[in-house]
């Protein structure tokens, strides 16, 4: 049960809620149970299954998405909490374009994924991290990624990929500025 308080009226309990949310630039309106996790909403209601669930308790980072540009764990939020907000998931990063996003490209070139289960979460975290720290050193990268678990790669190549992605993003930035 979830309480919503209308100003001036007694609290009302409801089990379902009409949710409006923008995901990857597209507007969705859905009636959802109030107890539904955001991760389940994305995966099962919107079929955006690129957001993965590795722990459902906020540690592994597999479920990371961008909420108004910030990295959040979608397993720790209820869908109703993102009402009227804008989300980006892994599916929205490169969109439908042929080209991979520079972070995705760097992950491929540095062999920074194996089973790929943690990868969308990492990429979304890296996206937010590089936005804040466009020129990170290795230690900052390691601190910045410590909230995501990977069981396959031993992280070595992920760190390398983040260095390369930072480089790609900086050079595309400077190209844009020159243009």
């Amino acid at each position, binding site marked *: 049960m979830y309480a919503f308080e209308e100003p001036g009226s007694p609290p009302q309990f409801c089990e379902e809620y009409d949710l409006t949310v923008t995901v990857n630039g597209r507007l969705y309106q859905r009636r959802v149970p109030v107890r539904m996790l955001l991760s389940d909403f994305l995966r099962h209601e919107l079929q955006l*299954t690129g957001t993965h*669930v590795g722990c459902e308790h906020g540690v592994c980072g597999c479920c990371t998405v961008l909420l108004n540009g910030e990295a959040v764990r979608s397993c720790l939020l209820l869908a109703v909490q993102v009402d009227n907000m804008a989300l980006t998931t892994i599916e929205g990063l490169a969109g439908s374009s042929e080209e991979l996003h520079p972070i995705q490209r760097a992950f*491929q*070139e540095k*062999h920074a994924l*194996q089973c790929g289960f943690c990868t969308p979460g990492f990429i979304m975290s890296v996206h937010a991290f590089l936005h804040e720290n466009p020129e990170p050193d290795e230690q900052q990268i390691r601190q910045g990624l410590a909230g995501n678990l990977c069981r*396959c790669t*031993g992280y070595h*190549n992920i760190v390398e990929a983040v260095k390369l992605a930072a480089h790609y993003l900086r050079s595309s930035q400077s190209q844009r500025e020159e243009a």
Partner: protein
Amino acid sequence: MTTRWFGAPVQRSEDPRLLRGRGTYVDDINLPEMLHAAVLRSPYAHARIKRIDASAARALPGVHLVLTATDLGELLEPSPLLVPHPALTQPRTQLPLARDEVHYAGAAVAFVVAEDRYLAEDALELIDVDYEPLPVVASLEQAAAEGAPLVHADVPGNVAAHLVQRVGDPEGVIASAPHVLRERFVMERGSAMPMEGRGVVARWDAHEGMLTCWMSTQGPIPIRNGLAAMFHLPEHKVRVVAPDVGGGFGTKIMMFYPEEILTPLAALRLGRPVKWIEDRAEHFVSANQERGQIHDVEYAFDDQGILLAVRDIFLHDTGAYTPYGIIVPIITACTLPGPYRLRHYYSEFTVLYTNKVPVSPYRGAGRPHAVFVMERIMDRIAAELGLDPLEVRSRNFIRPDEFPWDVGLVYQDGGPTIYDSGNYQAGLERLKEALGYEQFRAEQRRAREQGRYLGVGVACYVEGTGIGPYEGAQVRVESDGRVYVSTGVTTQGQAHQTTFAQIVADQLGIDPRDVLVTTGDSQAFYWGVGTFASRAATVAGSAIHLAAVKVRQKAKQVAADLFEASPDDIELADGKVFVRDAPQRALTLGQVAIAANPLRYSYGENARKLMQMQLAGPRPGPALPEERGGPGLEATAFYSPPRGTFASGAHGAIVEVDPRTGMVTILKYVAVHDCGRVINPLVVEGQVHGGVAQGIGGAFYERLVFNEEGQLLNGSFMDYLLPTVEEIPPLQVEHIETPSPLNPLGVKGAGEAGTIPVAALFAAALDDALAPFGLRIREMPLDPCRLHKLLKELQSTQRA
């Protein structure tokens, strides 16, 4: 052949899909009308079930099915024992749902199917189970103790198995040896923890009479066979697919996990697709675990540091059941001699039941324990004689000219333990150089003068990989020129779609991007075993190679007829097929595939072009000559290794320890790795990196803590600490290539290696760093608190 793909760092073909979030893991499969399941698990480690009342759950709107043991009919059978062994005299495997008794906390008691997972979990809370708690065996020591409670009432002493192996005359040698030592080593239980848990989606299609199951498993074909037998369906009417799998590391090779039976059963009963997804909390108490062993070892050596004999007697914790027989302790026993010329060896183990999650292989599978014991022995010999620990290893190594080397033991596959090839001294030399071992000693002295404690440790290992019985593959060129490969093994991130394509590309003279590989679909390839024991590249890779060779030969025959040339003069290169001296008149592989299927009509661009070329007409006689072996450019081959192939390696690290806190910083890590010929160095390095990270987890952080009631106390990622990027240092990987003579590619397995020596070398590095305190590590894992405590104890005994 213009390009050689084997050995090249080819980028992975699976990545673009996975990077865009377009993978298909089991939980990504959403079928129309699908229902969702949840499992009620025992809260007790050992209890009698007096009564189960599921009526309230059944009455909950939206609940479609509630299964308890009594609803299972003839399916209420213990799972098959996967690998029987004469020494396993008291095997026990689990029922799909517990009937009268539960033997570990987490055991499945009831299975609920509802409209959605939330509802299914609501219903679990409505099931009323009356348990009568029974005495619990919560540890290996307790299981072995005189008068201990019994995990299974009919298994005296909790002893599942007892096995003795003997090489030479260890007792005689020990009796007359100049130096003999005795020590106890303890390794704790940990868990593989793939980032994706287990999961099953099952669909029964009544029109086709077909049961399809998608499972996060490492062995779909054996599961297919088992489900067909259980549900009385023809095998070809059961399809089991392992789609994208988010890591396995051994824990997903088990069968049958209860949910792998219950989910298809529910789908059959309800006529609707059913999904069950294991959440992390469940994974901690229901996915198999490993590692718990206690070794009492006695060993003898001479004044030169030559190891003369070892007597190792150990206890192995198998948890509540023995689903995988006694594979793990057998591997431990056979791995212990390692790269050394051990001629007198006594190995005895006892497999004990405890009221804990069952044990089956987890990456390394009994080897990290063995390597820990042996490498601790090597370090101790060095310390006792004042020799350099690397020198002691060199003195004991089997030399390159001594292969094949018969260890004298029976391996896990029932065959002899014979090392096929290796060059251990070369590996150690490389490690020494990469670590800067010689220079380090001076640095260590300087640091110590400043009150800092630096240490170096190395560990060497030999790993049995690529065991049988067999794998197979089909390679087929379609008329568009693309090559489709299918094989029975699965993939959990090992890049088989890339490496297998590289193998085929070399044979057919094409780009690996034109080779599409299907793994883990029982309908795509009917025969096979699975991905475990570092065997996919070796066994399935060899089968794929053999099938590709056949296709190449067939392409040559077909093209030779068309060009009126001899097959020996036909070449395949750059996607073209032509006569060696006339490359300008070439066919594409797709055109040859069309010509290999002697129909009177064919379609598409390639077919039109083929028609326009002035080629020889069909030969007189049957359209499909006998020697072609069938239509199309297609071939199937199987590979069955004569025995396992033995990879090896030497890892080393330099650490800094703060004795006040027990905190360890890894300053440098080098892995020298020999897996025979390397198909793709990127992939092998990735495997080693991941293995080392898991090894570091196992060496320092990953201990499953159970209380005396058998309750897991750290069943979440908040409490059971997987290493993050901050705990794993940059990793340097060096390759040595000693080809295996046993398979056509010369490869050996690489999947597990990274994990195996890690605990051992950190024990050595900690000893070395803290030598002034007289530390001797005999246990793993060793988190900072535990290390701190050991140092405290040492100081107080020194004072006393």
